[in-house]
């Protein structure tokens, strides 16, 4: 059974290593609000900041231009720097890129690699712990939104989502709805219905 747990709540008498769980005297306690499954011993956080891992795909914004490269903002406490040699052409401030996390240092500052520049489009920012729900099982939720709105969507693990073209307004609405209801079950069907009901309205906004 899945139950909602709160910081300080005893989860198990065994040691469990997972995000949002801490171990004291051999027992595991919750450190965040989240769902805990007693049988599978899985903890899913409901709130929390982005924690970088190697290989994560991130959306970033160029926040400063330096003589030899760019400062990229990705929603972490510290900004990251990318050399101008990583890009084919010079970038300007405010441009959107997508890149992979190459390494994470001990103090949680990251370095990025394999960047691509995203021309145009908008970014919406949601909580990073809700990204798995936006993608869905084997990408089912995301492809459903893409099919209904005909938008190009790239989801960054840092909770930043780039949307371009199609019915941007509806795609944004749907993703914000997922963020708000990420803890409920049967979400893919609910969003499917939402997309169907709103398919023809509100297209004039957000274009």
């Amino acid at each position, binding site marked *: 059974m899945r139950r*909602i747990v*709160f*910081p*300080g709540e005893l989860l198990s008498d065994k040691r469990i290593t997972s995000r*949002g769980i*801490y171990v*004291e005297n051999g027992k595991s*306690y919750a*450190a*965040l*609000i989240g769902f805990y499954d007693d049988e599978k011993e899985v903890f899913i*956080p*409901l*709130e*929390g*900041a982005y924690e970088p891992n190697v290989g994560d795909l991130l959306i970033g914004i160029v926040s400063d231009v330096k003589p030899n490269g760019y400062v990229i903002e990705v929603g972490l*406490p*510290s*900004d990251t720097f990318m050399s101008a040699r990583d890009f084919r052409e010079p970038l300007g401030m405010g441009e959107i890129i997508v890149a992979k996390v190459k390494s994470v240092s*001990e*103090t*949680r*500052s990251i370095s990025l690699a394999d960047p691509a520049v995203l021309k145009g489009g908008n970014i919406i920012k949601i*909580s990073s*712990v809700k990204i798995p729900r936006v993608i869905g099982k084997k990408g089912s939720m995301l492809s459903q939104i893409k099919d209904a709105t005909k938008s190009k969507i790239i989801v960054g693990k840092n909770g930043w989502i780039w949307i371009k073209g199609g019915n941007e307004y509806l795609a944004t609405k749907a993703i914000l709805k997922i963020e*708000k*209801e990420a*803890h*409920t079950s049967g979400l893919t069907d609910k969003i499917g219905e939402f997309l169907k009901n709103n398919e023809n309205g509100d297209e004039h906004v957000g274009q």
Partner: protein
Amino acid sequence: MSGNENIKLIVDGKRLDGRELDEMRPLKITAGLLNKADGSALVEWGGNKILAAVYGPVECFPRHESNPYKAKLSCRYLMSPFASKDEHGRAGPNRRSIELSMVLGKALENVVMLEKYPRAMIEVFIEVLQASGGTRCASLVAASVALANAGIPMKDLPVAVAAGKIDGKVCLDCSKDEDNFGQADVPIALAPRNNDILLLQMDGLMTKDEFFKALDYIEKSAPEIHRLEVEALRKAYEETDAQ
């Protein structure tokens, strides 16, 4: 704390507002009511109204205070100029609120897992909109709910409540008049998981026995406050369920 002998604070075994000695004022907590903050809480406790907002982890400011081993917890407690009947002067920090900011920050540092965010900063803003005695305890409750709501890893959800001494008797959760005309005020914050004391101050005088009686009252009321904190956090999710 001078203890004005002319004012009777206990009449026929009841306190001025009709409470028993070990009874708290009604407490109401709302979580997640600010959209732009990472986490927030509103605590309405008797005549107190306290809003807490948490942002973080964010870049450490000032930079030289950043620590490569753990995050900095910056806590700001402010009492608004219209918070109570007394003159609070102009808005902004004063001697009292700077001390309280430090005290609350140190209390929260015991439970917040700061080592998860090296070089970063976690900001806690506490705004006292309406004050009626016991604001530091109510602020700590608000801050702990807001931190949990923000998804900052914590070892426990701290609870806080004050005990005091009025007309020579120990009582729980002093109101403003009891605080001003009583003989002592002891605010204590606990980690309810193992009853660790996170904050302990004493204003006025108490004997050892009276102090342990006060601690006993507080430890007995801690589970109730903790239950209300958890309910507030749970409700923040149930409301979206209903829509």
